[in-house]
């Protein structure tokens, strides 16, 4: 069951309580989930996903969809670090995405550095930009933080269109098709699907490590009650900045990978609010805000749904995919606040309660 904290932790705890009443008072603390204890489950999930890729290895359309789903799974997981665990509702992650994309592309085109290596400076620069931008805005909360980060996207778009030497301006920028592993340019779609799966795996493992680390608990404390967190001695700003930097670094890597896959993009496409900035948050919400597997699950539901809608209805009803997505968003906000993961957890709890012991 995909279900990190809730119901499954509940069952052994209650049976331990029952044992308490009969046996001697040697209460064993409920098993604390650590990175190591969570790892097998994550590896199992990743194994299943690679099985999925293997199953569809001959189907170009499905491979493309899977690649996009994995990319967004990674990006949304990255957003989840600061947006879900930290409760800082950023709509500006497309800025870090674009920073990563342009760093990778420029290093590759102008300095001839292999994209594999260029991803590292891309991640660093994205994290740096994220820290510099969010430092002042982190004193804002809730909707105001969201508005300010949304405004970042607008500023970045204006600057992106202006700085033609770096971004190619409104005409966009393209990377010549030179096959080769070192250039990260492949002919078959399978390689891209695997590349994106690797990215999703990286993000999932980082999220896993963060969630079970001091930083992860700090972030959740800041989300739940900032004043209480500060009173408990947590340096709120530092925690937020670290969460944001980590989140942005992963987003920057995703941007680099995306650019190398599509090989042509303009600032308006990379900084699109609906296509990237908001979609990270949307996927995380639909999957389950602040859960480990929520964004992964959300992306695996949302992206295939979207690409199917685009293929089936795109020609007849323009924007049909976004209509359905926005309906999902409103309905999820109203009725499924804990996303798919939360609903599964509740079903699981109800199901286990029904079973007589």
């Amino acid at each position, binding site marked *: 069951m995909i279900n990190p904290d809730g119901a499954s932790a509940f069952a052994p705890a209650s049976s331990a309580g029952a044992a308490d009443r009969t046996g001697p008072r040697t209460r064993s603390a409920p098993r604390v989930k650590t990175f190591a204890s969570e790892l097998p489950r994550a590896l199992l999930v990743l194994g299943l996903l690679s099985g999925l890729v293997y199953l569809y290895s001959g189907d170009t359309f499905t491979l493309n969809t899977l690649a996009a789903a994995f990319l967004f799974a990674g990006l949304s997981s990255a957003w989840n670090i600061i947006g879900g665990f930290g*409760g800082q*509702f950023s709509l500006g992650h497309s800025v870090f995405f674009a920073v990563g994309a342009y760093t990778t592309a420029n290093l590759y085109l102008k300095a001839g550095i292999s994209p594999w290596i260029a991803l590292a400076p891309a991640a660093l620069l994205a994290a740096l930009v994220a820290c510099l931008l969010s430092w*002042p*805005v982190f*004193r*804002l*909360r*809730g*909707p*105001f933080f*969201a*508005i*300010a980060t*949304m*405004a*970042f996207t*607008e*500023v970045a*778009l*204006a*600057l992106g*269109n*202006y700085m033609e030497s770096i971004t190619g301006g409104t005409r966009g920028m393209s990377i010549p098709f030179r096959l080769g592993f070192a250039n990260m340019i492949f002919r078959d779609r399978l390689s891209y699907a695997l590349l994106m799966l690797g990215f999703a795996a990286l993000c999932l493992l980082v999220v896993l490590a963060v969630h079970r680390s001091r930083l992860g608990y700090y972030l959740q404390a800041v989300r739940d009650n900032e004043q209480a967190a500060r009173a408990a001695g947590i340096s709120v700003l530092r925690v937020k900045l670290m969460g944001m930097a980590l989140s942005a670094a992963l987003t920057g890597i995703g941007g680099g990978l995306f650019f190398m896959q599509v090989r042509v993009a303009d600032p308006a496409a990379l900084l699109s*609010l*609906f296509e990237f900035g*908001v979609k990270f*948050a*949307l996927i995380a*919400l639909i999957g389950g*805000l602040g859960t480990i597997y929520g964004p992964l699950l959300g992306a695996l539901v949302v992206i295939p749904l979207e690409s199917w809608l685009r293929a089936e209805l795109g020609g007849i*009803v*323009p*924007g*049909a995919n*976004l*209509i359905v*997505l*926005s*309906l999902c*968003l*409103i309905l*999820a*906000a*109203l009725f499924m*606040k804990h996303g798919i993961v939360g609903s599964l957890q509740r079903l699981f709890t109800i199901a286990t309660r029904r079973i007589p012991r």
Partner: protein
Amino acid sequence: MADLANIVAVGILLGGIYALVSVGLNLIFGVIRIVNFAQGEFVMLGMYGTYAAYTFLRVDPYLALVVVLPGLFLFGAIVQRLILAPLRTEPTMQIFATFGLLMLLENVVLALTRGTAYSVTSVVAQTSIGIGGVQVGLVRLVALAAATGVAVALGLFLKHSMLGRAIRAVAQDRSAARLVGVNVDRIYMLTFGIGAALAGLAGCLLTPIYTLSPQIGTSFILPAFAVVVLGGLGSVLGAYIGGFIVGLTEAFAGYYLDPALKHAVLFAVFIAVLIVRPSGLFGQVGAEEVGLRDQS
């Protein structure tokens, strides 16, 4: 000198438009404490409503107000009741919901119009007046006058009418308002309806100025946020004056720096204000946090 007069005129007229768009947003924020991301789409709906009236009923865009205002009021009230009322205590979900509404309205209109751009003309549209050597389009003057009228009327309404008093009472303290017999849920619905109707008014008056596209709402919403934050959250006067600040900033940045950078400058100023004085120039200090505390 003539340049300067021109820039100021452009800035003030643009400011009038921004003020008109922002008043409703600020009213909704001030009373319901919801940042309505979909406010720009309400303006867009007003514009398309005007277009529909213009095409099917063959009336002048300015007369379409008679249909568009009640229509948007009703729409806003329904949206508040169905979507926002259940989420009253959850700011995060409100962001998701109003943003979802933004995407939904934009793309439904896109699907209905299939992306064709429309434009509407009025008898007023071709006229322009010279004031002190500066040529000014009459449609923009009308928008400016309407913004002024709306700000004054709304101020008077809130100050002196019974309903306006009730709205202010709810804005100040919800529980106390309920104690003295104000129907808070009804006030919320009415306020959101009024906010939406004001957006519809803006849409109507802007139809002769802009070419209609489904994306136009999003191009209004960010300047409107800037206006509201600059002027002061929840203050009608603030939205009015903030409109001119934003309009003038944009006009000056567009002329002296680079037209391509005018939005960047505008939002840099906006972010700076948000950081230095989050309550805005005319807002109450701390107003930006009140809405985020739990309102029981």
